[in-house]
Each structure stands twice: as C-alpha cells, then as structure tokens.
C-alpha cells in the first residue's frame, strides 16, 4: 500500500470516527448521568439531518450558512429532548432500567413513523456547503475537504465537551452524577433538572452528528437505526459513561471499518462487532469504563 493510499484510509477512518464520536458522546453522556440507554438517540440524529435539510435552504450555501443551519437544527432537537425527558423519562426513573429502554425504543418507532409521515419515503439530499466542497490532494491521494472539516470539528467538540465538563458548574455536576448520582441528591442538587440538561445535551450532540453529515448522505427513513447501533458499539467499546472513551472507541471503530473494508472486504460488515467483542473480552467495562456502575 502506498503512503498516499494509507493516508486516505486513515483519514477516511477518522472521518467516520468524527461523526461516530459526536453521536456516541451524547449517548454515553446520557447513560453516564442518568443510567438510561436512550434508544431515541438515533431518532435525534435523524431529526437533526432532516432539519438541516430544511433549514440549510434558508441560509446561504456556504460554511457560515451551514453552521447556522446545523446549530439551529441541533437546538430544535435539543428542545425535543427536553420534552421527551420531561414527559416520558421523568416518570420512569424509579422503575426498572428495562422499562426506560422499552419506552425509548417505542419512542424511536413513533419518531420513525412521524418522520415518514412528515417527510415521506423519498430521500432528501441537502447540498454540500460550497466552501467545504472539493477535494484535498496530498500527493496522489485525495480526500474530500468536507471530511477534513468533520475531523477538525469533532476535535473542536471534544475540546468543548472537556471544557463543559471540567470548567462549568453544570459540567462538574454531570461528572459528579457519573461518579455517584445518589450522593448528589443527598447534598441538595436538583438531580431532575440535571437529568433534563444531560438529556438535552445528548439530544443536541446526536442531532449535531446528523446535521453535520446530512450533506454527504441521503437523508431518509432508516438512518436512525443504523447510527444507533454503531454509536452504541462505540460507547460500549469506549466504556459507557465516559466521553474520553467515546473518542477512543470512535477512532478504533472508524479505523476498523476503513481498514476492514480494504483488507477483509468479505467480513468488513462484522469488523466493528469483532472489535467490540475483543474489547469486551479483554476489558469488559470498555476501554475507559469504570467498574462501579
């Protein structure tokens, strides 16, 4: 394999990892804080993509317009997340975890049907932002500029999440909830409100992932389930509840997909599950997961 081809493989894997990280970080944040496996996470991703398709037309077709569109889309979905947490999940915290799982699974089906009714069965293909289209050539190799942007943006999100978790009051409380959510209650923290914030941030990140990738995919029914499975694998590999683990998990899964397609094309579909199984055998709590859950 030439250096150029290797570079394309690596960048391709990292661009996959970028979206997987953004989406999985929301899932792992929600689980870490609330102990809820949110099956509507894929729906939030799907809504983010659909809303981007709608809102992008209202902005200019360049990078700033795209930024405006994906921020607006993600905020709208975050608001939906607040509604879901307030109306559905809040009533289930005292119940079995399986009940929460089933409730969010049911909501995912409802949202899937809703999307079909609203946007129809035909796929939507938002345009790529003009200033982010084109190809970046490195020697004989070339990679879309948009994917380089995705990698850079995911790095920005990672830094932003670190800042949020370590330098803001809410972030510290969320970290504390990951460590010991029962203790928070005893010291007078409004845990319910904290849960609402965590769920909204999780929904925001899922929608952000969907909105960011929307110009590169066909947005249509079914995109919720495929990303749900992949982001769950990333979260498990990284360690459920750990955002840093989501980074490692996403990179591992992204590269496994990229190199798996080249070297093991007959089994590439199973590559990410193979990685997950190996990681779980070696380290059952995931790469950076903690024992105490």
């Amino acid at each position, binding site marked *: *394999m030439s250096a150029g*081809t290797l570079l*394309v*493989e690596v960048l*391709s*894997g990292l*661009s*996959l990892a970028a*979206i997987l990280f953004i989406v999985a970080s929301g899932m792992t944040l929600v*689980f870490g804080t609330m*102990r809820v*496996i949110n*099956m509507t996470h894929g729906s939030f991703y799907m809504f983010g993509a659909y809303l981007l398709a709608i809102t992008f037309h209202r902005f200019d077709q360049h990078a700033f317009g795209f930024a405006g569109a994906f921020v607006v889309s993600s905020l709208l979905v975050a608001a939906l997340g607040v509604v879901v947490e307030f109306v559905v999940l809040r009533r289930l915290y005292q119940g079995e*975890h*399986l009940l929460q*799982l089933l409730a969010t*699974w049911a909501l995912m089906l409802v949202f*899937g*049907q809703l999307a*079909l009714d609203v946007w*129809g*069965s*035909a*796929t*939507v*293909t938002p*345009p*790529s932002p003009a200033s982010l289209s084109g*190809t970046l050539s490195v020697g004989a190799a*070339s*990679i*879309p500029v*948009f*994917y380089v942007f995705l990698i850079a943006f995911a790095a920005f999100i990672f830094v932003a999440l670190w800042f949020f978790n370590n330098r803001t009051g809410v972030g510290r409380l969320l970290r504390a909830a990951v460590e010991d959510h029962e203790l928070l209650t005893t010291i007078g923290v409004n845990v319910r409100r904290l849960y609402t914030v965590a769920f909204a941030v999780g929904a925001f990140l899922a929608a952000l992932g969907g909105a960011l*990738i929307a*110009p590169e*995919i*066909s947005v*249509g*029914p*079914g*995109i919720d*389930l*495929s990303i749900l*499975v*992949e982001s*769950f694998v990333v979260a498990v590999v990284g360690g*459920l509840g750990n955002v840093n683990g989501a980074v490692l998990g996403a990179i591992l899964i992204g590269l496994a997909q*990229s*190199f*798996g*397609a*080249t070297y093991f*094309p*007959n089994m*590439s*579909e199973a590559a990410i599950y193979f990685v997950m199984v190996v990681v779980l055998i070696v380290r059952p*709590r995931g790469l950076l*997961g903690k024992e105490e*859950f």
Partner: protein
Amino acid sequence: MIVKEKVAAGVLGTLLSAGTLAGCGATPSTTSSSGGSTGGTVTIVSLRGTSGPTASLGVPGNNALQTEVNALNAKGGLLGKKIKLVFLNTQGSPNIASTDARQAVLSYHAAAMFGGVSSGDGVYEEAVAKKYKTILFSYTFSDAVFTRTSDFTPYFFSVVPNTNMEPMAAALAFKKEGWTRIYTISPNYNYGRAEVTGFLNALTKLGVHYTLLGQQWPALGASNFTSNISAILAAHPQAVYGGIFGTDLVTFTKEAEGYGLYNKTHFVAQYGAIDLQALGNSAPYGEIGYARGGWWTFNNPKVIAWAKAYHAKYGTWPSSFTMLGTMAFDAWVYGVKTAHSFDSTKVSQAIAGATIPTLFGPYTIRGCDHQAEIPEYIGVLSKNPGAYYNFATYSPTFNASWDKIEQGCPTHQ
C-alpha cells in the same frame, strides 16, 4: 449483575434481535386461496416496507397498486366485486414480512399478494404463497432463486428482471466499453450476493476475460460508505459494478463524488428515477445507470400522462417499481378475467404463458418459470433539459431487451 452490564446486555439483545431473521411454522393449508370474498368485495394485500431503509422503494409500489385499484373500482370492480387493497408494512424486516404474509392469507384471506421489497422478505413470502397456495407477485425483489430452484411454486410470478437478467444488462455495457479490470460493491445479503454472482457469470458468458480486483459488501442501510470507497480507490479499477441501490446508492454517490471516484474509474449502478430525483444535479453524469422499470425512457403519450398524473397526486415522479407494480397488477387482473375466478390456482394457470396487455406495452409471462419477459433499461446518465421530468435521463442507451438478457428455462419443471 452490575447495572451497566444488565443494561448493556438488554440493549445488545434488543439490537441484535432487531436484525435476526425468524421463520415460524404454521398450520398447513391444502386448499387454494379463492380470495377474501366478502359480500361484494375481494381483498388483495400489498406486502411492502413502508418504513425503515426500504421505504423509498416500498411506498411507490403501494401508490401504484392504490392507483390501479381505484381506477378498477371506479369502473365497477372485477367480476362484479370491488377490490379492497390492504397494506401491510414489512418494515424492511424479513421476520415481519413472514408474519405479514401469513396474516395476509390467514386473516385477510387475500386473493393475491403483491410482494415485498427485498429478497430477504421474498424468501418468507414465497414460502407462504407455496404453503397456502396463494398467488404472489414480485415486482421488486428479484433473486433468481425464486423462479429457478426447487423452491419454485406455480403461485409465484416474477414481474421484474431477476438477478441474472439485470446484471447481464450491466455486463453488456462492460463488454461494449471494454472494461476488464473490475471491482464490485453490493449489499451484504442474498440479493446483493446473487446480483454480483449473476454479473460475474454474465461477463463469463459474454466471453469477457476480466480481472476482479476486489469486492465490497457493505451492510444494507449502512450509515456511510467512505471506507468502501477508499478501498475501491486503492485498487485502481477500470470500472466498478454497483449492486447497491436506493438510499444506499444515493449516499454512496454523494460520498464518492467527494473522493473523486468518478474521475478515477467508471461506475455502473441501479440509478432509477427515485435515485436520480434525489440526486438532482449531483447525479454522476457520464456514468451508467440501469433500472428495472424505465418509464421515463418512453415517449408514449399515455405513459407520459400516467407519470404526470402520479406526480400531480404524490408530488414525486414514479419509481421503477411504480411501473412494475402496475404491470403486476395488470397481470393479476388479466388472470382473474381469463379464469373468471379469484381462485389462485385458476388465476395462476391463466397467467402462465399469457401475454399481458399493459400501458407500457404487452409482455409475456413465461410458462416454464413464471418469469416476465421484460427488458432492463440501461444507459449513460445525461442531462435532459427539455424533458417533462427534472432528473437525469439515459442517453445513449444500451440494448438490454429480453432476448439479450434472458436465460433458458430452468430444469425444475
């Protein structure tokens, strides 16, 4: 068990079970379906995925059937009975397709079933048709095994080019263009595998001495194809045969454009009306598309009026499967009228070997395996500014008529 492991185990189980295929047994029936004839109505059932990854293929087929049923009922129905059309959503899941097919027969007493989107669904639907002796038309799923193996049932009719015919059309294009260093990408399930096998066999049959540089088998409904694209580029093929379709193909196309794939190799794939509409100006002009029902290549005023009426009603242009669904429905109506009965056995006998009149011209359903003698539509994707529709057309086209892509009758008879 610690909480995290409990939850993770539950989620894993749920996710995995969602993709698990299941076949269930049922009480066998020995009588042929005579149709859910209740009073003045008779029921037919459409088994389509109208949600999930196959919805973009499923819904246009349902629209075709609904349009035809409405028109027929407006004229008084069939043999004096109104037709009741029931839609069952298979959700792109074979186990749901299995349940739906049995429900169609046992609960709705369907006089005929119009089958699903994927060959994964078709496996179960054909089994139900065989067991309960109820006529089943496929106008979308196309794996050649349905008509060419010992599983063949006289109650099944394929009104769609199968996985030998369709790739033969693509192989004809490869031969004409002289492409021999090739790569394939196709979804990783029985249709995708069969399509590629059919393509390679077709090349061999045409005497093309090809070198297969590699193959990609992404999951149906994969969220992205960048890893597959970079693997294809690394192999430097002369041309790529794509068995991917629908939303997968649209996503692949957009991603491949970014990687400059179309500047580095040729690509031949199932670009039908729906995909070309979705892609708009992002269509890979100059590459080769093929489709099972190329209604937009007709200059027939009646076909144009049909397409425009569909567009006016549904806000989108028909798909290949709208055209083929219409043709399948026409075959059933023809069979019922000829047999003077809704009985599946009699209707089946009436259709086998018959030439069916349709809006798109007459076609024959071969008696030996119930395969419709229809062409594949294939050509170079080109802009067509003067057209009444707003997507890329095929120009120039390749000749993939029935006589070019047909296979001899199978030996199961």
